[in-house]
């Protein structure tokens, strides 16, 4: 048990070193990501769920908005100048923050749509059950419901 946790800790340390090394060599990219992904960081802060659905939702869309600028940076000039130039362009901001807004919109609208679907499905099932009960009463009489005693209309002939 102790050996397994020690191994996990060493793996984490190796990964951190690799990531830190990469960050040092890709600072303009890191700059774009840090600024462009600000809505995602905000979502991480407000997301109380363990599953982090808000973060996933906003982050995915936010990342789509950031990717074109990262691609421009990597394909044209991977430098701080280029990074600042991109950050100084309002269209860039609009795309990065707008895509995050779409993420937020999906996050807020989807539950309502799901609720509508669920309600429709439940109502459909209730209707089916009610129909079955009606069938049972038609086949076996009102006594089958247990709420109404069967009426006995037979009276001895006097």
């Amino acid at each position: 048990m102790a050996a397994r946790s020690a191994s996990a800790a060493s793996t984490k340390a190796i990964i951190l070193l690799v990531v830190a090394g990469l960050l040092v060599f890709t600072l303009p990219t890191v700059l774009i990501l840090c600024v462009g992904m600000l809505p995602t960081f905000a979502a991480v802060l407000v997301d109380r769920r363990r599953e982090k659905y808000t973060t996933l939702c906003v982050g995915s869309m936010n990342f789509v908005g950031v990717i074109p600028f990262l691609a421009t940076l990597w394909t044209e000039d991977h430098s701080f100048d280029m990074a600042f130039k991109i950050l100084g362009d309002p269209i860039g901001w609009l795309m990065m923050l707008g895509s995050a807004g779409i993420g937020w919109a999906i996050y807020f609208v989807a539950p309502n749509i799901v609720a509508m679907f669920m309600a429709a499905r439940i109502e459909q099932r209730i209707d089916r059950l009610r129909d079955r009960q009606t069938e049972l009463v038609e086949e076996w009489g009102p006594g089958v419901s247990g709420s109404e005693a069967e009426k006995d209309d037979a009276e001895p002939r006097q």
Partner: protein
Amino acid sequence: MAKVVLKDRFEIDDSMALPQFDSPTAKAFKCVARTAEFGDLFALICDPKIPMRAETMEALRGFPGIGLVKFIDSGVVNWAAANQRQPVLIFEMPAGTRVFEKLSSVIQPLSDDQLIKGFLTPAVNTLRELSARGITHRNIRPTNLFYSDTSESLMMFGECVSAPPGYNQPLHFESLECAMADTTGRGEGSIADDCFALGVTLLCLLIGRNPVPNIMDPHQFVFDRINFGSYTNIVGSHRIQMNMMELLRGLLADDTRERWSVRDVQLWLGGRRLTPKQVKLPPKAARPLTIGGMEHENVRSAANGLARNWATGGDVVRSHDFDNWVRRSLNDENVVENINRVVGTPQAIQASPKADDARLVTRMCMALDPHAPLRHKGFSTHIDGIGPTLAMGFTNENTRETVSAFVNGRFLPQWMALQSRTRSEILQVYSTLEKLPALLNQAGPGFGIERCLYELNPYSHCMSSMISHLYITRPEELVPALEAVAQGHELPPIPMDRHVAAFLAARSEEIDDRILRPLSSLDERPAGDALKVLRILARVQSVYRNGAAPGLCAWFQTLTKPAVNSFHNLKMRHQIENAVSRAAETGFLHELLKIFDDAKAVQRDEQGYLRAQQEHAQCSAQMAQMTLSLENKESLASELGEQVAAVISGVLGSIGATTAIIFYMI
């Protein structure tokens, strides 16, 4: 008024009464045979409440000679005047009139020659023929004598089958043994009892009137006959010629061993003459025994006194005085032996509990006078008189209770042990009586006192209030009778009651106790009682091949409606209703029964209903749960909605990212 037809052979004119041929319990009407084989006939329309002598009727068929009104046939007819079916007896009409219109009538005394040729000779021949056929007349008296010819020289006995034996006989026409019994319990008796009645009738003809016009106190009369002899009490001070005195003393002897038989009378008619015997009185005890304030000097008198004072008789029997009287004063070893045999030793008698007094007195009476009627709690009857007594007094609660107490007393084995000779008919009654206590003490329909009634009266009609007016005597007549009831307007609650059940049990070999016993058990199923009755009557209809009874089936259709309605499955119920209607239209009860006897269908219905109930309940539970879910749909959808949003975003993000990378790479 109209003519009533009996068996397609006889026409009875109910507007033509013939009062001259009336019997005390039956009215005579003109009757004509449809064939020429019979002469003038008359029909006796009998009282349905009075049991008739069916066995005697059978034995009387083809009776020869002119000494007895000829019995032709019997049956049951719809008697409009009474609005019911009544038994009818057909007889050949006597050529002459009744000899004594009433018992109080006075006629010209008959001469010896008239008596011998006109009365005794045909009477003796008739009695001899009756004896040969193993039956008795038991209805011989002057008011039941007719002239058999227009010249009024020959006499014949009247009918003897319209009432129980001896029922219509005045007290002094009955031998002492029969006179001590209740009117209805006198029993078939023997030809010796007929000889006694012949003697009294002879005396009437001899003196031209009734020798004992008034019997003020019947008990005192019997007491006097016991102590001073019947001859002394009946002949009294009437002057009798010497030649007739021998015959009368012989016929009126109280001791049956001393009484003249038919053979003795024949010999007398043939010319044998003996010195008239003195009246033989019962042996006297050395001192009298006082019972109920009266002194008794002989054993028969003491037994009679005990029977009359049965309420205090137990104390008398237990007293030392009684024991001393029996063992010392009476000086009769047979009596002592009888007491030891059926009552017990003096010690056992004295130790007998007070509650057992009535039984003790009955057994003591039997031991003291074995030839007397059986007497219990004031009820006095010969063994074969119990049936007619019960039949005639069945509506009387006292009679029912008395007969029940008598049957439960189980006196017969002791009584049989005391009889020196028993007739075969008595043995038959004995075997019937032996099985009665077990039947009487069962409470359900088919048992009890009603069963005793029909076991003891094998020819009596069913006395059920539903069908008594239809006078049915055989089980095969039951279903048609019930069909007639069903065709009426007012229906009884159910076509079965205690009388019908007991009647079937006693009369039908096909309906035994096993089949009737379910009627006693409580059945909580819908129409359970109706189904049990249906099962029995279906069997009766089938066994006796009665035709269709659509009215009865319709009656059962109504009665079994609760059973049909007990089917839960409405479709099946409807199918069964249709099936019941179709079966009822056939008129055969077993068709109806087949429907209700399908136990598997009932079981299937019950199981299906149970399952349906469970399914209905499950549906309700599910709906309740879903309704609750519907109310909380926002909270339920929240997590799922976030998941969905994450997935959508993830998918869109992936697509978008991939598209952008591809775009920049190209």
